């Protein structure tokens, strides 16, 4: 996914947990950099969360509430401002036999020890996974920043201005392209595509068929900027943005909206 997700349901599918593999990764890596799409994902989470109301009603436990409030009061009386950790709920009263009266305290002590260990382990696992996720996201951001920097600073990177075509939506854009690195960056501002349509950027090589560089749907006239990788070594004759059916096409079929050629 080089540009924004082309269909709003993609955000709902992600929030639902149905997306997987490359589709899921593409959306995650795009949302990490795009505030507009991060907001769309937050909206989708809220929409999907409401489906919880379809679950058969279950009564909330009064015991849990009481236990929570007791824990908070106990922490306050102990003068602690530190976060309260989850503790097992107190055992419910039951009739004790002689043996259970002897064994119960031992079993309870073992159970508490096991729960404390389990809870500590669970907390550490949770922290570790959160750190891993955060590190992975930061690595992605760093790699992306490195890619942008290397594309911009490379001496053989070309910049091509894309000019609007007559009777087409008026926009302005340019691409930075480095054939040796196989990297392309698009920056531009163009009115939103009509309903059921998407914009698609093409690299038209000196020989052979046009190569799709990305499908995008600008949001509310906001500037778009994204980067993509292409096969290395392709010399462009022209770059063009066309208007295609929503989701894009394998080869251009629609009218040219923006066109530019290397000087």
């Amino acid at each position, binding site marked *: 996914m080089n540009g924004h997700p082309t269909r709003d*349901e993609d955000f709902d*599918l992600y929030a639902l947990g*149905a997306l997987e593999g490359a589709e899921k990764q593409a959306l995650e890596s795009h949302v990490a950099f795009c505030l507009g799409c991060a907001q769309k*994902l937050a909206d989708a*989470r809220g929409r999907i969360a409401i489906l919880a109301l379809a*679950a058969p009603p279950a009564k909330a436990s009064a015991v*849990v509430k009481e236990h929570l409030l007791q824990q908070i009061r106990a922490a306050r009386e102990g003068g602690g401002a530190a976060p309260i950790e989850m503790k097992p709920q107190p055992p419910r009263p039951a009739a004790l036999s002689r043996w259970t009266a002897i064994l119960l305290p031992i079993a309870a002590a073992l159970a508490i020890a096991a729960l404390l260990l389990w809870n500590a382990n669970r907390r550490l696992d949770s922290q570790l996974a959160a750190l891993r*996720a955060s590190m992975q996201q930061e690595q992605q951001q760093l790699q992306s920043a490195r890619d942008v920097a290397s594309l911009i600073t490379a001496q053989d990177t070309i910049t091509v201005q894309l000019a609007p075509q007559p009777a087409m939506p008026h926009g302005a854009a340019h691409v930075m392209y480095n054939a040796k690195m196989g990297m392309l960056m698009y920056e531009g501002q163009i009115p939103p595509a009509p309903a059921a349509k998407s914009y698609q950027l093409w690299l038209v090589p000196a020989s052979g068929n046009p190569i799709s560089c990305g499908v995008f749907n600008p949001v509310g006239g906001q500037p778009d900027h994204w980067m993509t990788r292409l096969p290395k070594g392709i010399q462009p004759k022209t770059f063009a943005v066309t208007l295609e059916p929503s989701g894009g096409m394998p080869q251009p079929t629609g009218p040219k909206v923006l066109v530019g050629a290397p000087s």
Partner: protein
Amino acid sequence: MSRETASESRASDAALIDRLVQRDESALAVLYDRYAGVISSVVHRILRDNQAVEEILQDIFLQLWNAASRFDASRGSLPAWLVVIARNRAISRLRRHNPAAGDALLEGMAVSPFNLESSAARQQLVERVKASIENLPKEQRAAVELAFFEGLTHSEIAARTGDPLGTVKTRLRSALETLRRTLHSAAQSVNQRT
């Protein structure tokens, strides 16, 4: 819900979050009365285990107490956020995933067009949401329920139902498009009335 006093039941989530930040435990009690029922319902529907429901409830409300200052009520919906976390925790247990799969850091903010602060609005929405799901074609409804309540992905749903992957994707997309439309209209209607 019935335990909220008249004045507390009118307190907004944002005001209650502010009180949580001030370490007012009565605000946690109000929020518990307000949302623990919804959370219990969804977790019980996923796990069908009362003990697990209680553990997840306790865990989530402790997290809310401990991290209230990090929740920005102007940017997100508290009930939606609580449901997202509860559902992820429950599905992690169901699928024996690492519990960290349900960590709030990975779940992010959730924005909802629905105001669930009043019990009347919640009740109206329950009916609207149930109707929206029940009105979906049978196969679409099944796909949505497998994804939402069992945490299955596209290909897992296809494997479970024996349907082609493309068919499952189309069904889910169509279902979500319909739900988006009907729930948007429900939000407008309920928000106007409450």
